[in-house]
């Protein structure tokens, strides 16, 4: 076995598995930093995966060829924005419990996407298989570097985009006045209000960014991994992304690291089979690995997590 290729491939698979989690975790950060808990990430991803499956299919049908996956991604962003508005209206305008309204998103997502799939495709349980799913891009020169060339620079365009989003998110949150306002609204809304920041508007923006990003994350699952949308295309990735966000202490770089860690512990399961000694390990234990590892790491290293101070509280200007 060629070790250098194996490590490169492992890194590559890790990033493929991480991509959706990175997008969704970044989404979660924007919502929660503005003070709105978003347990609906899972549902928003489902909406995105659905939109990508349907829009890309129709784009292919209309002869858009290789451009169709990108149409799917755009559709995912649009549907993510719309779906997150439900969460925003309920929890910001009507001051609903944010956890509850997130659960609503999850319910509506599983219900309405499958309902629409059955409606559009004559009772089928999944969207038709996509012919033009995304292909991996080899970055010239960089992809020739040993290990990381194979691991990082020969990946799906969505993976590159995810990494760019992390950098941009980090920049926006910590280096722009918009980011400062967003964080202020999540830490101390009444103080932010006093200095003229529009608390509700900031929170709407935060939630909607999270909708767009989470849906984009869901879209990447359809466009790179499954090539079709069905009831189990998104099964728990949203919750894992939430875990990555908390794990990364609501910081884009931290959440990125956590998402890659989850991706890695998923990817390594595929590589266990290469080793003779690993054949004795029951497959269930390999599946379990990412979750058990997370618990151990959380307990051992992270401990008390530092959530935004006003997370989960509806803003009420009349309240002290």
């Amino acid at each position, binding site marked *: 076995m060629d070790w250098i290729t194996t490590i490169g491939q492992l890194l590559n698979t890790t990033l493929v598995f991480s991509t959706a989690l990175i997008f969704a975790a970044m989404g979660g950060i924007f919502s929660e930093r503005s003070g709105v808990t978003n347990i609906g990430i899972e549902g928003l991803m489902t909406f995105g995966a659905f939109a990508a499956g349907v829009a890309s299919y129709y784009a292919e049908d209309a002869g858009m060829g290789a451009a169709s996956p990108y149409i799917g991604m755009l559709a995912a962003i649009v549907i993510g924005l719309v779906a997150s508005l439900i969460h925003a209206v309920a929890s910001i305008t*009507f001051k609903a419990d944010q956890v509850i309204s997130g659960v609503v998103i999850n319910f509506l997502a*599983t219900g309405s996407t499958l309902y629409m799939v059955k409606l559009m495709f004559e009772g089928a349980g999944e969207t038709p298989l996509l012919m033009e799913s995304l292909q991996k891009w080899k970055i010239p020169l960089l992809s020739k570097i040993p290990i990381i060339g194979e691991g990082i620079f020969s990946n799906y365009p969505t993976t590159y985009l995810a990494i760019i989003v992390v950098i941009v998110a980090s920049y926006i949150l910590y280096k722009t006045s918009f980011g400062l306002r967003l964080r202020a609204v999540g830490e101390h809304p009444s103080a932010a209000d006093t200095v003229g920041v529009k608390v509700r508007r900031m929170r709407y923006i935060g939630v909607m960014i999270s909708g767009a990003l989470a849906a984009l994350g869901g879209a990447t699952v359809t466009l790179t991994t499954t090539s079709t949308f069905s009831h189990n295309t998104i099964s728990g990735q949203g919750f894992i992304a*939430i875990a990555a966000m908390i794990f990364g202490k609501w910081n884009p770089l931290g959440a990125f690291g956590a998402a890659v860690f989850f991706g890695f512990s998923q990817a390594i399961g595929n590589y266990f089979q290469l080793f003779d000694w690993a054949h004795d390990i029951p497959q269930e234990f390999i599946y379990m690995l990412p979750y058990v590892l997370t618990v151990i790491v*959380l*307990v051992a290293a992270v401990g008390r997590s530092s*959530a935004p101070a006003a997370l989960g509280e509806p803003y009420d200007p009349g309240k002290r």
Partner: protein
Amino acid sequence: MNKLFKIFTVNSLLTPLVSIVLGLIVGAIIMLIGGYDPILAYSSLFSTVFGNLYDFGETIREITPLIMTGLAVAFAFRAGLFNIGAEGQYIVGMTAATAVGIKLTGLPIVLHAIVAIIAGGLAGGIWAGITGYLKAKRGVNEVIISIMLNWTGLYLSNYIVRNFLLLKGQQRSEDIQDTASISIGWLSDMFSDARMHWGTVIAILAAVFFYVFMWKSKQGYELRAVGHNGDAAKYAGMNVKSNIVKAMFISGIFAGLGGAFQVLGVFHYQAIFTGSPGVGFDGIAVALIGMNHPFGILLSAALFGTLTYGSAGMSFGADVPPEIIRIVIGSIIFFIAAQGIVRWVLKPFYLKRKKEKVL
């Protein structure tokens, strides 16, 4: 008895009721847009459930585990904790009951069932207790631990079933012994072979226990105090940490029992899961619609179970995809959560009433 009625005042019942109606209307509108006949759909839903004894009995079967996971989620909510892990607790409860039901031999008929039920409840309680302990001792967010334990529980259960309880050549465990069954034969005969079991009775008793424990005991008072304001409770001399563990433990027992009933009363075996069964997640919805009150949960589980079981008949009778019911349930929770919307809908009625009084 008076007190019992006081829980259901006009105001506390109005919001859920209006929300349910609004949710059904949203479902109807979506069916209309999709080109279906909502009246035919809803009538075939209800005629499925109430049309014959078998389906009515099966609806009760559907409702039972929802009561248990609903109680589990609500119990933790009352103590200020979000138990999103009812799913995992339900699964390990199933597996523990299956293991005891198959492996333990030589026990007399009622005793074996009781031992199996207790095993299921304890397994669920311990699974949730891990979350509670880590939250209390290490301050780790209970939501993230529960989510991780859901998946861990799922795969652990599959591992146990595949390696220790497997029926040869099948993707499921052997059957439990007859002594561990909690099915009620004569009742099933009455309901033309619907799978009736004692779990339903225990579920109702569990709701009563929830009420008495939470509102009539010192321990329940402490749990609620911790849920309302942990710092104040601590200042008043309560042990916040042990209360967190206790709340999660009891919450998990409810969910674990739900899983045990499902094995001992309904299936009599456990299948290897290909995906999460979802009963625990549905429990979140049940708890929310039931306003986190045990008696509210009995009603909301009945509603949830009726809609879910009936949705199959809906797709038969009116050709509507059964997923519409999840949209309806989601909308109901939405309206309950965003009470401002319901108040806005009710406003004209309130105004009218006031005017009449003035006259």
